[in-house]
């Protein structure tokens, strides 16, 4: 399971969404949360190191979630970083595209803390194997 002290990056261009996700993570017991407002900023922060998990929105300016996961997966330092993609409406082709690009899982908004927990558990039970 993801360590409660793990450094988590929440990526979304909408401040409110970042706060909502942060709040949900807090409810689950995660406290060490950093925010980024788009894929580019996120990538810079990830390169800074130390992150154990990323929750990223899809539709963002500059570099969107798909661009970010591609960049992350092609980076030797970050290629194994657990990555949860937040999507608005799940559309099959789109989600498949994200999965092909290497997201660890995805979650459709709006979601509850409980759903988020399940997704995280899935990701980390797999990663732990």
């Amino acid at each position, binding site marked *: 399971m993801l360590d409660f002290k793990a450094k988590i990056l929440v990526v979304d*261009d*909408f*401040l*409110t*969404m970042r*706060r*909502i996700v942060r*709040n949900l993570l807090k409810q689950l017991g995660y406290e060490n949360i950093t925010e980024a407002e*788009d894929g580019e900023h996120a990538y810079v922060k990830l390169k800074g190191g130390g992150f154990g998990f990323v929750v990223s*929105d*899809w*539709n*963002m*300016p*500059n*570099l*969107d*979630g*798909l*661009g970010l996961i591609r960049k992350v997966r092609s980076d030797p330092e970050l290629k194994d970083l657990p990555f949860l993609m937040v*999507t*608005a*409406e*799940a*559309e*099959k082709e*789109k*989600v*498949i595209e994200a*999965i*092909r690009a*290497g*997201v*660890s*899982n*995805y*979650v*459709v*908004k*709006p*979601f*509850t803390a*409980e*759903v988020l927990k*399940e*997704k995280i*558990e*899935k990701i980390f039970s*797999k990663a732990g194997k």
Partner: protein
Amino acid sequence: MDAEMQEIVSDFVTEAEESLDRIDPLFVDLETNGEDQEILNDIFRCLHTLKGAAGFLGFQQVVDVAHASESILKKLRDGEIGLTKRLADVILRSVDTLRVLIGHVKHGEDVLEETGPLLAALADALAQASGKGDPADALPVPVSAVVPDPPKVASAPPGPVPAGPAIKGEQLPAPAGPEGQRGVPDRRDALQNLRVDIERIDKVMDLTGEVVLARNRLLTLVNAIGSRYGDDPALENLSETVSFLDLVTSDMQLSVLKMRMQPLQKVFGKFPRAVRDMASTMGKDIELKISGEETEVDRSVIEHIGDPLIHIIRNAIDHGIEPPDVRKARGKKERGVISIDASQKGTQVLIQVSDDGRGIDTDCVKRKAVEKGLVTAEDAERMTDEAAIHLIFQPGFTTMDVATELSGRGVGMDVVQTSISRLNGYVEIKTRKDGGTTFRISIPLTLAIIQSLMVRAGGGQYAIPLALVEEILRVASKELAVTAGQKVLVIRDRVHPYFELSELLGKKSPPDPAFRYAVVVAVGENRFCLGVDKLVGEEEVVIKPIEGLTMESSHMIGATITGEGKVVLILDLASISRNMSGPNRT
């Protein structure tokens, strides 16, 4: 709701308002520059993000409306349909509705708007633009049926592990949209704006107030020193420096005030929809004309002026504007007109709300006030029409069965008066039988710093807000006449009631001196003179609230510290004026 959630909601409101405010100019861009993918995507993203966050927070109506217009934007962006005026209109309409909805969230109002017609209009516009006439291809209606339903999603089985086929296990909420375009550069001038906590600005405002006070004190000191050591060359430098400080302080004060200023559009923008809704509920046909919405006022005015204005508008619709058939019978246009106009007049902002309805029947108001025991029959008899109209502002006075078609809410107009007074403003009413009613609201541009006239009366010093002072006269005591027990002063053939300030404040009247200073004050149409012992001078004062003092009964709006370092009370002229023109005067 816990504090955290409350904060999130308040952030959401701010961000949502900003997103919505960005859309109007983007549409203007679109119309001037033609269809631009980038702009379309930008608008799409505004709505899309808004919808996403609203979904989390459970604002279903916001989700519905944002979703419906987002669907159109998506098709526009993907080039499936072209932009028509009708589409633009209907999208802008949904933006307005979203503003209204966000407004409800902001004010914690648990109200639902009638969004059905809008959603249908969005669907129609899309169907028409698609040109195929294929309803299945058009916007799905009803929209709420296709928006992901939070509990459903919450109970959905856990998502698939990263493997393609597993995706079938995920319960997919209905219609989907491509999730965004890649590599679109951000059009937002993120660096041009800074989001600052209002508390910080208020702190700066507060400190500026202190600097103003210190500046005033310095000016006084320099004058005092100047008169004593006038020849000292060093004094010139000191004077120069203080003059410079004086100028800079004024500029700084203005800059800080501007930081807090926002256009009245923020408030007025809600009215068209509100008027349309109320008019249709009450079976009236009403056109709303708004002008001067670009007038900027202090943020606190923005926050508090909406409710009283809506109250006045509701009254105009309810009691003022006649039903179409009545209007026709009276030879008026069937469609009634309510106009709202804002303008800046010196240091005051003037907001007028007029209707062309039946006007207020003063006899009826008097009768009602007597019935309710607000005034005695004799008082009512003596009362001028002007004074009688102001009876509607009395607590306990409701317009129930004064006019026809009554709302029966029993909410009196006194809340309007109270709200405006809190903003240090005043309301006036002009009405003409069958000619309509006009409410004139006057509010100081800023609530914190005012120009004042310092006077002495009854042994104390007081500050009178200068904006309301018309002139000052030195009058010999024998020029004062007495009519019906009231002292009056005739100025240029006009009779003004005259009051000794000291008596108004419950102090003993001054011994009969040879002459007095009469400060002529105009609160709206109400002019009167305040007799004082001495004029001290003009001073810019910072209004500080006085704790534990009932402002209304004391005729004070607050206190300030003068250049000499003395605490001085600031008169509330509006309250004094009300008291003397009101029915309770004895």
